[in-house]
């Protein structure tokens, strides 16, 4: 963080949301390597540091399913009907490619940051998929 820099809270919040938006898809796809329904998926992501509300995750899941990256099935569990999601074959391929993309961008950012302004603290950006794997 650059010392002495003041940013309006609203601007920071918008930028933070923009940054999260791209990561969410990757995190959701990575998490759905194992079958989950909406609520447990949200909990798993929150435990890994990616909080996401139901108003965001369900439209996202539907969009990914309509793109052929996810498969879903309704099943009764604990006397309630739940919709379970998991990665499709296409979804696994896309996830691998996106992870490769992420690693490349992460390395670039690390290089940019390392060669950045004096006094800036090194920033380590971890791979979200690795983080989720560790806690699985």
């Amino acid at each position, binding site marked *: 963080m650059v010392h002495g820099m003041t940013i309006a809270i609203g601007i920071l919040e918008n930028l933070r949301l923009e940054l999260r938006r791209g990561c969410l898809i990757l995190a959701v796809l990575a998490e759905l390597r194992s079958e989950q*329904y*909406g609520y447990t998926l949200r909990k798993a992501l929150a435990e890994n540091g990616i909080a996401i509300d139901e*108003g*965001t995750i369900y439209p996202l899941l539907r969009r990914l399913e309509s793109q052929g990256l996810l498969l879903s099935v309704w099943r009764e569990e604990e006397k309630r009907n739940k*919709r379970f999601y998991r990665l499709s074959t296409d979804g696994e391929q896309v996830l691998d490619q996106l992870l490769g993309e992420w690693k490349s961008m992460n390395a670039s950012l690390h290089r940019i940051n390392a060669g950045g302004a004096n006094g800036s603290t090194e920033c380590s950006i971890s791979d979200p998929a690795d983080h989720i794997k560790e806690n699985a």
Partner: protein
Amino acid sequence: MELLDRYLHAVRFWLPSRQQDDILAELSEDILSQIGEQEAKLGRELNESELGEILKRSGDPMLVAGRFLPQQQLIGPPWFPVYIFILKLVLLWVLLPLFILIASGTALLSAQDRALAFLRTLGGFWMGALSAFAAITIVFAVIDRFHHKLYEKEWDPRKLRAVSKRRDSRKIPRVGSVAEIVWGFIFILWWVNRLHVPFIPGNVVHITLSPVWQQFYWPIFLVSLAGILLACANLVRPWWSRLRAGIRLTIDATMAVMACLLMRMNPLVEITAISISGEELAKLQIAAQTGLSITFMIVAIISIFSCLQGVRRMMPAKAGRHSDVRNLAGGAAPGP
């Protein structure tokens, strides 16, 4: 769970009809899971305010439902600049001047309260503008919906339009100054009766200026002469100085005032004719009066715009931009 039912019902209202049941089943399951987890922690059922907190965290029903809708914008970014451009062009540069012209004509022809007639006609502008806005928006929404590929194709920078040299607003075109001198000279000759322009061949109809013009004789003469002298100075030094910009502004302001006064004068001309009936002559008089009134109205509008330009010329330049006027009264050659 009446509160939950109300929340889900509110979300349902905004959802696309074909997906309502499916989406609500998933949403309600999620909220029930949250409720179940909270109740397990507390060891009791949730009260209304605790349930309300869970629903508040879920989000406003309209916003939640909106995220499930297929398209979130009517006109997307690629077409939006074109849409705004066309909208401004039609509303501000076509419809508004047209309505002002129509309203002014209606007011002039109105036998009663002219201001009221003007305002009433101008009121019709809003309905016209609304219809134009709706039509343009629908057209662009349709284009955006069906022609995404139009702006995805390859584009060639070599086919872009060449940049035209931007006119330096400090410069006064010499052609304009020459035209002003020539036409000003012709006008003054006519004004002082040294130049006779036959209006209608054969002298069937004779048109003369009415006595109301007598009070304007010298002002018009002096303004025209000032215009010619200024044009001569501009021909020699074709860039605006503060002094000459001030003189131009004074001339334009005087013309605007005189045009406004003349617009209200009646009659402006006197028509005599040999072989035309009294009724036809009266109609001719009205037509001439209306035509001249509209002409002076246009002259007034143009003069007012020129005044605004003149005021802009006189204003000091913003930082980093050249002023329209040189600070020296003589006007040195403009620098870089």
